[in-house]
Each structure stands twice: as structure tokens, then as C-alpha cells.
């Protein structure tokens, strides 16, 4: 458990270091995800080392977003000032994206049959 968490944090740190030193627009945690995936595939990291900690975090991931959402309250004035374009654009666009990506992927997947991609 402690070992798994340490690995995850170390990969995040490596991601931060790479991302910052190269000035990449990708945040350290996303870079860390890529590095860990690479490490698992080439066999530098044994999946058993991180499994328990990763499962624990993933199964509670929704909880970690709650404080981020509460942060919205600080900008309530800003949102209130231009609420119409903000709400309409946010709501409609959220569904547009789901429809575009979902329908396209589903069509390609169905057409691909067994030999997808």
C-alpha cells in the first residue's frame, strides 16, 4: 500500500520534472500516467507493486473532485455577470461533444467488426 502510493507519487514527480523542464503544455500527473503505462508495458514496474494503491485511489476518485467544485463559489460573481452565454455554451457544448465523439466512435467500432481499428 505504502509502496504503491510511493510509486504513484514518484511517477507524478517524474512527470512534473519532465513537463516543467521541457516547458511542455502537459501537466505532470498526465505525463506521470503516460510514464507509468510505459513502465508497466516494458516491465520496469510490476503491476502488483501499484495495484492496491491505484485501485484504492481510482475507486474513490469522485470524492477528490468535491473540493475543486467547492472552489467555484469564489467566482460566483463572475459567472453571474455573464450567466447566459456561459450556461448555454457549457451545457450545449458538453452534449455536443459527447454526441460527436460517441456516435463517431460507435460507428467506426461497429463498422470495424472483429478487426476494429
Amino acid at each position: 500500500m505504502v509502496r504503491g502510493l510511493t510509486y504513484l507519487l514518484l511517477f507524478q514527480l517524474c512527470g512534473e520534472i519532465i513537463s516543467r523542464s521541457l516547458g511542455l503544455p502537459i501537466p505532470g500527473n498526465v505525463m506521470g500516467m503516460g510514464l507509468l503505462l510505459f513502465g508497466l508495458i516494458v516491465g520496469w514496474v510490476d503491476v502488483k507493486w501499484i495495484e492496491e494503491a491505484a485501485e484504492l485511489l481510482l475507486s474513490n476518485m469522485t470524492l477528490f473532485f468535491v473540493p475543486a467544485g467547492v472552489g467555484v463559489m469564489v467566482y460566483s460573481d463572475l459567472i453571474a455577470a455573464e450567466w447566459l452565454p456561459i450556461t448555454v455554451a457549457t451545457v450545449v457544448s458538453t452534449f455536443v461533444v459527447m454526441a460527436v465523439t460517441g456516435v463517431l466512435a460507435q460507428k467506426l467500432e461497429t463498422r470495424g467488426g472483429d478487426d476494429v481499428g
Partner: protein
Amino acid sequence: MWAELVQTPLFGIGLTLVVYLLAQTLYRRVNSVWANPVLVAIVAIILLLKGTGVEYRDYARGGDMILFLLGPSVVALALPLYQRREEIWKRKRLILIGIFAGSLASIISACGLAWILGGSREVILSLAPKSVTTPIAISIVDKIGGIAPLTAALVVLTGCLGAVCGPEFCRRIGVTSPVSMGLAIGTSAHGIGTARMLEVNRLAGAAAGLAIGLNGLMTTFLLPILMALSGF
């Protein structure tokens, strides 16, 4: 005594956990998508803080510690991706095409609608990366000249909306395969949508996790190009 206690991390952590657990119980009881625990917990905590006059920064002392765990959780998304790597790799072409189309659709629909409805330039630019995961969205907006805190708020709103309505919406429009649904919700509702997908289906969660990273990358490169093309 209370004033002092409120300023310790115990307050923010305790409040978040208690409200979240209550919200989960409520979700199980009422069985409605609108009772989404994240959404209910966020609204309840905001109302509680506003009602009692507790400052956001006092809450954030504990809240930020919970938020910190989001970092290693994103790294942990490598696990479902690794476990489902063969199913993902087989579908690499449709994954790339689907996310690219979604990324383009997100920028055009969000900015276009805000522009038609008379949004200011700052608001329009702040809306552009709203489907991108928070850290990437913030760095994009800093570069193009939007309001970073507003983008952070919009990203969370988008995520909640996608997590709440996404699965049902996808089913209604015929998007039923785990990979396609995961891609749709991950591209649109980033991490919050992915967390929801992980509860529904493992493969869908892996696809959604992949969409977070790829959509962030594509938006980063697409946005400056679209701005140059439209002359905005």
C-alpha cells in the same frame, strides 16, 4: 474555540467526507442521476459555507489535502489502461478520430455559442478548454488570454454535467459500447466523467482516462490554430 477549529485542516477534510458520505447514501436511496454524489456534495458544502459565513480559504486548508489526491489518481489511471491495453490498442484509430472530432466540436460549439449570445472575449476564450482536465485547461487559458479561475469553474461544471447525464444520454443516442461511451464521456467530461465511468465499466473507464490526456493534448495544439484561422 469554533473559530480556531474551522481554521484547521480537520474542518475541510471532515466536512467533505461527512457530506460526501451523506450524499452517497442519498444517491442510493433516491436512485436518480441528479442525486449524483459529487454534485450534491459540492452544492451542499457551498450552501453550508455561505450559510455559516465560513471563508472558502478556511475550507480549502483541508479541502486542498483531499484535492491533492487527484494527482496520484490521474497517474493511477495507467492501471486500467495497462489492464485493457489490447482492447484499447486494437481500437487505436477510432479512439484518435473520435477524440479529435470531440476536441474540435468542443472548441467550436462552446466558443461559437458564447459569441452568438454576446459573451465577452475573455469569457469566450475561458470557455474554449472547458472539456479539458483542469491542469491542462488552466495552462491553455493562461496562454490564450482567458480568465483561469473562470475556466476552472467551467471545467468542474462541465464534468459534473457529463458525469450526471452522460451515461443516460449516450444510451439514448445509441452509444452503447464501453469504449465509445468511455471516449464520449472522457472527452467531454474529463476526470469527473472518467471517475463516473470507472464505476460503470472498467474498459469504459480506461477509454475515458485515455481521452483525458489525448483531448488535453489535441486542444492545446488545435486552439491556437483555430484562433489564427478565425482571426479571433
